[in-house]
């Protein structure tokens, strides 16, 4: 069936249609096919290091295996609305089953440690269902100091909820934070400094995460403030629909 459906801001074609290269719409031509666009993880994928028994580097542990593997510690988590229903959690699969209840650590000083695990569980669930991309507009785009020009404004560090950039804001990160300065940490991570904090952006994975055949990016933003205890871990699923165009957010963790 030649089905093109519109899902949020992004036209999505079924794999059958992509395979036939019939195109999704006249205004959104598919990028040229790229062979060998296999899913790949980056240094921002830290779940293996958060496990009680990290998998060996040469093991064939799948993302599904990682979801069921025990974390380095058990966390007592409680739903935001029913804190009396606290229970111990030690694996991503157990956490993800109840994540919709907005689970948070009972020990509030464990909030940042748990947020990294929660972000990595969300990432691993996406990686478990990822597939090779048939097409990519990402190509060899670098994770470098120029990222704020390409990433959505939602990347901006906003600890104050009243200053949050709303989903769907069309501006770029560099437009809302023109003073940030980047410093490359590794081949796929960059540290950005600005007057009220530091962000480290790292590649978690790149693959087709939503089944439309087009390559997507999964990035982690580690948010820190100067001389304060606040630390957050945000996960962005992004795509690019045309060559050189800014990235668009498909999904954000934590959801606002």
């Amino acid at each position, binding site marked *: 069936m030649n089905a093109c459906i519109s899902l949020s801001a992004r036209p999505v074609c079924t794999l059958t249609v992509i395979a036939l290269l019939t195109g999704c719409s006249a205004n959104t031509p598919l990028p040229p096919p790229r062979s060998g666009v296999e899913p790949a993880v980056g240094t921002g994928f830290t779940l293996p*290091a958060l496990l009680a028994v990290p998998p060996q580097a040469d093991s064939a542990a799948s993302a599904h295996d990682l979801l069921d593997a025990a974390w*380095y*510690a058990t966390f007592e988590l409680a739903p*935001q609305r029913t*804190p009396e229903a606290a229970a111990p959690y030690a694996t991503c699969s157990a956490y993800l089953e109840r994540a919709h209840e907005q689970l*948070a650590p009972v*020990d*509030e*000083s*464990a*909030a*940042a*440690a*748990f*947020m*990294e695990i929660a972000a990595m569980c969300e990432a691993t669930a996406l990686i478990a269902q990822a597939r090779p991309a048939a097409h990519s507009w990402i190509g060899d785009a670098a994770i470098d100091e120029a990222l704020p020009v390409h990433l959505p404004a939602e990347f901006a*560090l*906003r*600890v*104050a*909820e*009243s*200053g*949050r950039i709303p989903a769907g804001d069309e501006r770029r990160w560099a437009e809302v934070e023109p003073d940030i300065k980047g410093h490359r940490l590794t081949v796929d991570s960059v540290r950005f400094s600005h*007057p*009220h*904090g530091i962000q480290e952006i790292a590649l978690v994975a790149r693959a087709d995460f939503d089944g439309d055949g087009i390559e997507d990016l999964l990035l982690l933003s580690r948010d*820190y*403030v*100067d*001389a*304060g*205890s*606040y*630390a*957050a871990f945000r996960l962005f699923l992004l795509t690019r629909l045309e060559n050189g165009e800014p990235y668009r957010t498909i999904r954000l963790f*934590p959801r606002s």
Partner: protein
Amino acid sequence: MLSAHENAVLMRKLERYEGRVPHMYLDARGYVTVGVGHLLADLAAAQKLAFARANGSAASADDIRGDFESLLTLPGNRLAAYYRPHVRLTLPEQEIDRLTTAHISSFHRELQTIYPGFDGFPTPARLALFDLIFNVGASNLRTAWPSLNAAIRARDWAGAATHSRRAPPVSAQRNQYVRNLFEEAATVTQ
């Protein structure tokens, strides 16, 4: 000056939200930390503190170096208990209290600079701002909270309550605690 009551409330709340850890550990950014979120900028800062061995005797500078450098081989942002097997020294309770009091005094000076007239604010508003500055730091509080700061400059405590909410992972309970304090300040000054 903070009253004894304000100081006691602050200590209790900071321990609840930031934790109270008697041994060195790594914070979310991987910095060596001890007590109630007291960051140790370098080895020399750690060696100025009165760490003790398991038998209660005073730790030497080399003992402290051992713990400090052992932590630097580990990943940051784990539960504090994760680091316990990798260190041998602890900080006595009274030393943790002394550090926390010094930390509170340091933030008090920052708050007086950011908010002229801070010492005349209602007690609940002062406690709310202490919680915020411990968590987000002086520079973020000064530059990234325009709506909150405008309300505070206007002594509009109800407005401050509205704009005091922090993003995750700050818990709903901690946000509500600060909101309640500002709302209490609004009723105190009516």
